[in-house]
């Protein structure tokens, strides 16, 4: 049993609701109407395309193609993360892609405990689970990388002072990493604590709408929350760690040309 399809005319009519936020923006002179429209048009096109190729991927259902799809998503995530955290993609694509593939690999390895390999590598499981986990990697790493490198860039004295006290470069960078990780995981921990009370998570809602029982839906939700949080933390740590190997020169100075011109 699946969710009841919505007819396109109704969906189009429903989209008129967006006129309300636009009216509020106009009233408060928030200059976001154009970007709101562009974002929604982009979303519709992207999701339509996703639906088209996911239909194909689900039909073919080849583990190799599924893994190739994950690899493409990782590269797209790297581009989005560097762009949003003000870093230059060319400098960081290799360390970040390595960090995210390693984190995804480790979590999919652990998922074998609960799902047999055939199920996990089937498109119906791998693509949505991978997508949700990667989406969270993206949100977490935008915050950690932005915070980490901005900290090092705007508070160089702190780094230098710590080095002068005898810290190794890694020891001197650790407080910056801790600060960045704290900023990224605090809202997530708060969200986990109120899950089910304040909000019903998207995956669970999707499963219930798709016809699954709430009991099965919560099992998957707990599974995905553990996977998401663990991967986000591993990827954030590995991301900062591996990006640092490219970001510092042999004198332990932050290299120039790491950041996009703003």
């Amino acid at each position, binding site marked *: 049993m699946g969710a009841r399809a919505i007819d396109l005319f109704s969906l189009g009519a429903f989209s008129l609701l967006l006129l309300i936020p636009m009216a509020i923006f106009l009233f408060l002179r928030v200059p976001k109407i154009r970007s709101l429209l562009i974002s929604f048009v982009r979303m519709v096109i992207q999701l339509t395309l996703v639906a088209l190729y996911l239909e194909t991927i689900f039909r073919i259902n080849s583990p190799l193609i599924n893994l190739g799809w994950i690899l493409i998503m990782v590269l797209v995530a790297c581009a989005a993360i560097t762009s949003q955290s003000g870093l230059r993609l060319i400098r960081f694509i290799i360390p970040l892609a390595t960090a995210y593939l390693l984190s995804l690999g480790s979590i999919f390895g652990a998922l074998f405990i609960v799902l047999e390999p055939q199920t996990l590598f089937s498109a119906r499981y791998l693509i949505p689970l991978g997508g949700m986990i990667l989406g969270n990697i993206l949100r977490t790493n935008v915050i950690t990388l932005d915070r980490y490198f901005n900290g090092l860039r705007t508070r160089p004295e702190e780094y*230098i002072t710590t080095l002068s006290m*005898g810290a190794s470069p890694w020891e001197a960078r650790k407080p910056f990493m801790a600060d960045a990780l704290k900023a990224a995981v605090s809202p997530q921990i708060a969200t986990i604590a109120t899950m089910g009370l304040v909000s019903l998570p998207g995956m669970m809602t999707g499963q219930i709408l798709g016809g699954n029982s709430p009991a099965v839906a919560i099992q998957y939700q707990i599974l995905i929350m553990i996977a998401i949080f663990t991967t986000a933390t591993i990827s954030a740590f590995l991301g900062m760690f591996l990006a640092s190997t490219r970001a510092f020169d042999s*004198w332990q100075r932050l290299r120039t040309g790491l950041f996009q011109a703003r």
Partner: protein
Amino acid sequence: MLRLEDIRVEHGNMKILRGIHLEVKPGEKLWIHGPSGSGKSTLLKVLFCAEYFSGRLLFNDQAVSPRTLPDYRSRLGYISQKIPGFSSSVEEVLRYPFMFRANRRIPFPMNRAREILTRLRFDTHIMSRRFADLSGGEQQRLMVVLLLLLDRPIFLLDEVTAALDPDNIETVVDLLTKAPDKTVISVSHNSEWRRYCSRSLRLEAGDFMETV
């Protein structure tokens, strides 16, 4: 001990240091002064190898390189103009450097810490207070305590008396310059340093103007 040869620093089109030559002998006390933006702090960062520069930096007649950097830096005690925003207690801040792998074998010198704290007019309760809650002057004096506890042979001091009242300035300068074996390079607008230093240099627009 320390020699700078034709040190140049440029930030984009701006020339921060324009071919600095400097020799500092062991135990020498050097005061560098000059207007804001003349390159004083940058010069200290060059000495700490934290700045991009061209030219040569020699320590004991050997060029400092990435290979010799850890050993070279282990001889330096550096206090920057901006004080790090430690959120822990004063005692934890003072113990912090002794937790690094390089210092782990050194026991925390509690008696020496108490002695310096008393000398710098801190009361005994200071250890339990939060570093971030202290005034700029108190934080600056605590950075001096840290520097003296680490007991490095060369002190690089960037405006270390900027937030202090006259009484504390004299105490701090005296404390930092009285050991004959310590080499001190202090960058400061405060002329109190002149009385305690064996040499003073004026830096203007990235170059030394005069030697006294």
